[in-house]
């Protein structure tokens, strides 16, 4: 990585309505993680298990918004991070969870908890601790400003590496053929 940065950048990551596939792909940069860790240190992230988000230089978010807690975490990331990166198809357009947007939420809850085969007298969970589902799954940029996007399902390790290199180097990410993939 060709960067001219003195102290390590603080990076937080999280998965909202995602599958952790993008995090797996981040780990898939393999031995390049040693180069990366020279430049950054992780704050809140599933990789550190730190629960509280501190002030960060970069926030990387996988997954879209499917419930109120997702929106809360996203806003917290926007407040605490100078640069916010949406990673993966779900963060960028809702992805697989957004396939439910064709149906009404009431109908989905009915089917999942009441009317599906094998459910005996199922109840729709209503514990006040459970975050309320949103009527529609949304992409991150529809709620807060997102600085950079890394598309892919998941983006390949090489795609993530190139994008992070560009961003850490202060450049607009330019992926080019083979690295820019939506699938």
């Amino acid at each position, binding site marked *: 990585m060709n960067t001219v940065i003195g102290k390590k950048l603080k990076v937080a990551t999280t998965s909202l309505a995602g599958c952790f596939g993008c995090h797996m792909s981040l780990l898939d940069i393999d031995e390049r993680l040693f180069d990366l860790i020279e430049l950054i240190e992780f704050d809140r992230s599933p990789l550190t298990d730190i629960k509280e988000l501190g002030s960060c230089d970069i926030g990387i978010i996988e997954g879209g918004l499917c419930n109120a807690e997702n929106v809360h975490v996203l806003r917290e990331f926007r407040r605490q991070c100078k640069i916010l990166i949406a990673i993966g*198809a779900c963060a960028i357009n809702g992805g697989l969870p957004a396939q439910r947007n064709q149906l009404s939420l009431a109908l989905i809850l009915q089917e999942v908890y009441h009317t599906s085969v094998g459910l005996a007298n199922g109840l729709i969970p209503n514990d006040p601790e459970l975050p309320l589902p949103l009527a529609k799954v949304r992409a991150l940029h529809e709620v807060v400003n997102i600085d950079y996007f890394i598309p892919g399902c998941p983006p390949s390790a090489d795609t993530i590496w190139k994008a992070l290199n560009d961003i850490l180097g202060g450049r607009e990410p330019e992926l080019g053929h083979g690295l*820019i993939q939506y699938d």
Partner: protein
Amino acid sequence: MSGRFTIDGKIVAFTEGQTIIQAALAAGVYIPHLCYHPEFKPHGSCKLCTVKVDGRHTASCTMLAQADMVVESNTPALNDERRTLTQMLFVEGNHFCPSCEKSGDCKLQATAYELGMMSAHYDHFFPKRPVDASHPDVLLDFNRCILCSLCVRASRDVDRKNAFALCGRGIHTHLIVNAKSGRLADTDVTLQDKAVHVCPVGVFLRKDKGFNVPIGRRVFDLKPISAYVDASAAIEKE
């Protein structure tokens, strides 16, 4: 009669009756496009092929080439406008590439790659567009329709079946099946029809042949769309 004009400073030869995009593609100059297809009369609706001719915007698929024209195409300003148009197409439909059989063979996706589209930028409409699975061989997934009218033109001009039409106006424009029931099963469309194969996106899907070529080895995985002389022919071979 024939002559020459320039695109981005490159000299391009044309013969009388050729449009700018025809002459450009023949000379190996890529101009982004979605509703243009070399075998059909231009429709001029997607506007992605918009270029500047002597300083003025015009669709290169409908404008006839003329001697000594000065055409600008691959400029940051025009590509920004093309990317914006592409982003609007993405949010107006339901384009979920990871679960689409056409991913990698899709001109909309490949054009977005070419233009460096990192997100759809705008709020997604998530429109409700039920699929038509009535036909035994062909699935119609309207979620991906970009209203290029290629299936309409192919069915009317090549298949002589007139099985499709664009209906409604403005944002309400949508593709319909020309049958009293509105179902594809109640038309005489067959798997052999040009209309079934001409779709630049993933509306027409063959039912018994899913994921024949793995993701990563598809037409636009191998080469960017700009590197194909005839990208339409390349995806129709699949």
